[in-house]
């Protein structure tokens, strides 16, 4: 890129492809797409440097709608495709778009390894707790007892919690947002984009056709204040209408307390997204509705060496120590003999 000519100022519309968006009307995916298009121009990264990789599922149609480079790959493999892409060209700005079935069921293995390698990529998991594209089977995040087409008597497997999995894989950036909280979602996506290392974002996404209202508690005007806790770095964990409630540690366990009556903010748990140990982030990821408010925001954002950087360094070091690869030298290494 030339340093003389300033970057053209892009708008959300510049990131829209010419393809008609084909999600069901009312689907939460629209909102995520809109926020993505909104934040990208603010980052100053050219469109041609931006690549979206997805797997299979409703969410995975995402790359078609972005005016960037993209691969709509195969079920569960997006993190692996993205890894090769990023390793081959570390300059690229890489997003993985995936869903609960894609990332946590068929692609679980790739997800955990992408996260532990900490490549500088962003993974956005649209969690709608259902298989939408295949028309309504339960997913690995569906709650116990969930009645679906494939579980007419209720699901009997325990759900998996995406953020707990990510933290277990030593994720350096973990966050959660909600499709309809557009400002918050934009903030979380921007923070993910700025993070150096693998950023893992879970977005609660409503599938209004096969699992409508799965996150009603978190979005309904009446209930959301008591069901959601917005995390802020360095601030106490406060929620509820008028900020009347908080989270306190009781031994190793969190508990909900009412502020006042002798309990002040200072008694509450304070959020620290930069904590070296992931215990706090993990504890937050375990807080589930209805026992607890579910935290949204940045759970964890720490710095750790990245796979792509380190590989680049090794290559630079090998070149420095042994010189740029020379075929003649390669072939002649070891024992050779000459026939006259």
């Amino acid at each position, binding site marked *: 890129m030339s340093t003389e000519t300033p970057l053209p100022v892009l708008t959300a519309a510049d990131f829209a492809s010419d393809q008609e968006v084909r999600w069901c009307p009312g689907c939460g995916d629209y909102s995520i797409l809109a926020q993505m298009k909104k934040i990208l121009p603010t980052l100053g990264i050219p469109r041609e440097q931006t690549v979206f990789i997805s797997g299979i599922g409703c969410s995975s149609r995402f790359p078609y709608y972005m005016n960037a480079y993209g691969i*709509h790959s195969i079920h569960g493999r997006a993190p692996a495709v993205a890894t090769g892409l990023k390793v081959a060209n570390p300059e690229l700005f890489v997003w993985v778009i995936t869903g609960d079935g894609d990332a946590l069921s068929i692609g679980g293995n790739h997800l955990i390894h992408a996260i532990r390698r900490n490549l500088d990529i962003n993974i956005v998991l649209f969690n709608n707790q259902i298989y939408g594209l295949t028309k309504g089977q339960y997913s690995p995040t569906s709650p116990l007892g969930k009645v679906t087409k494939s579980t007419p008597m209720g699901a009997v497997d325990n759900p998996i919690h995406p953020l707990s999995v990510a933290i277990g894989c030593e994720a350096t950036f973990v966050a959660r947002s909600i499709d309809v909280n557009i400002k918050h979602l934009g903030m979380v996506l921007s923070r993910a984009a700025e993070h150096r290392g693998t950023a893992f974002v879970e977005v609660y996404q409503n599938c209004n056709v096969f699992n409508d209202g799965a996150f009603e508690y978190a979005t309904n005007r009446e209930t959301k204040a008591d069901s959601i806790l917005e995390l802020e770095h360095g601030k106490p964990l406060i929620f509820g209408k008028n900020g009347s409630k908080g989270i306190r540690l009781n031994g190793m366990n969190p508990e909900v307390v009412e502020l006042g009556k002798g309990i002040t903010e200072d008694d509450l748990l304070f959020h620290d997204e930069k904590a070296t140990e992931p215990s706090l982030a993990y504890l937050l990821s375990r807080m589930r509705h209805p026992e607890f408010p579910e935290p949204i925001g940045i759970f964890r954002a720490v710095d750790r060496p990245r796979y792509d950087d380190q590989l680049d360094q090794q290559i630079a070091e090998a070149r420095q120590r042994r010189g740029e690869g020379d075929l003649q030298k390669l072939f002649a290494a070891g024992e050779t003999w000459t026939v006259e």
Partner: protein
Amino acid sequence: MATSTSSDSGPESEAASRKPVVELDSATVRFCGDSGDGMQLAGSQLTSTSALVGNDVATFPDFPAEIRAPRGTKAGVSGFQVHFASTDIFTPGDQVDALVAMNPAALATNLGDLVPGGVLVVNTDSFDEKDLKKAGYDRNPVEDGSLDGYKMFTAEMTKLTRKAVDGLGLSVKEADRCKNFFAMGLVFWLYDRPLDPTQRYIDAKFGKRPAVAEANHRALKAGYHYGETTEALPSQYMVPKARLEPGTYRNVMGNTALAWGLIAAAKLSGCELFYGSYPITPASDILHELSKHKNFGVRTFQAEDEIAAVSSAIGASFAGAMGVTASSGPGIALKGEAIGLAVMTELPMLIINVQRGGPSTGLPTKTEQADLMQAIFGRNGECPLPILAASSPADCFDVAQEAWRIAVKFMVPVFVLTDGYIANGSEPWRVPDPQSLAKIEVRHPQARDNGEPFLPYERDDNFSRPWAIPGTPGLMHRIGGLEKQNGTGNVSYDPDNHQQMVELRQQKVSNVANDIPLQEVEGPSSGKLLVLSWGGTYGACRTAVQTVQKTNPSVAHAHLRYMNPFPRNLGELLKAYERVLIPELNMGQLDLLIRAKYLIEPERLNKVRGKPFTVGELVHKIEQIL
């Protein structure tokens, strides 16, 4: 043929001259022992030394799948066969002229391959009651006269080695680990080989542990002197230099040659090599070799599984790198879906299958050619791609480059088939001048800012689409596994478009036939019998046909490198012979393809014993047909 000469290459040459030296055209030696006995090292040292003295060589390492099978059992026997000659040779030899058996289990499992009257070297120290029993012997064969038909040469190798390294402060276990060098020394004397290449190897390998290095040096010399001074073996053998084409040579194993071929292809095409792979026998050595060469910009990625390995290579190819993945049969099965994605997205990449015995886990360390159909058909939908097969260890170098040339020219993933036999086998390779290697042309469309829409599935004369890489302004586009509209690349479910795209993808692969050489034949261009072979059986088939041609000149040999598409003259060529014989290390896979495509009825020779063909069994089959 026997002439007497004196050795000038071994230590104390005057002593060596005391015994007569018999000159031979070629010799085949096999070291065998427990998998912990260092037989692979002994074999590879004999190989490189023989190559260095100017012989043509061919090798066959044969090791158990278990890393450490119980000591002394037949399951744990590891062997390494070396064939060295003063003439051009193409196989490691059917039978061995000299067998070194380090224990009874090794003797029991390998004696059948020793020629009658052949040299048998036995480490008698390990022939105790316990080990004899483990090998299934009731009586000690060394003592009961059952081996009288061989030139047996016994040595208490363990004791002699311990004595040689005495005073170096080594534990008994460490001392015993040197006995393969004793065995090497003995064989080096027997075949009049110089010790210095092995001495250099010891210094390089054990230099940091002087006591171990010294012990190995002593064991090597002790073995050599033992051969020279004891009376048991009356003569020495010598195999003069081969008349090879002038040039600089080195010995290469197939997996190494393949890795170097990939590095060369990347350089010649100006692409950076990305290699995504998951450890699997017998392909892992490619990963090991490539990961050593980061100064070439080679990026190796040890993926979490086979699927990630191939998927990462697809991502890398999309980024403009030379995306390569490799595995063996079971791993290739896992990669199937992603290979389909590469075909659908029309990205250039290489998929290498170092074939082994199947199905399922099968015979991980043994060779087979049973994945041809998997390469051709092993994906859902109409999913054609070009397939090349390497014929020998050194040929892997050329095939890697040719495969990449085709991949980028036709924008298509290309399969490369090798097998465990050529991957681990080795042969002398005339080192090419890098300047003489053909450049591989790669075209990436340039940035545009005229607002014209970019068509990612626009076709050139070969029906190839443009390889536009992320980072290029104005060429943003999306690809994927859903059917694409020709030209625009938009998702399309249109029936006519799908028909057209299926046909285009097929036509693109068929067009490769116009871009590859015509099939050549060794021998008459028509006649009684054509032997049609492919892949790693080249050496054995070529030697067998040459043998038969001495008495029957109407036999010819054609060896296929291009398995899909076939060379365009193949049909015509097959019809020029009364009969066609297809020998394969499978149950008839090429045979089925040839029957289906050319409507002929070939004869077959099929073997699935985890071992390569012997020349003898091929000659026998050919003579039966004639």
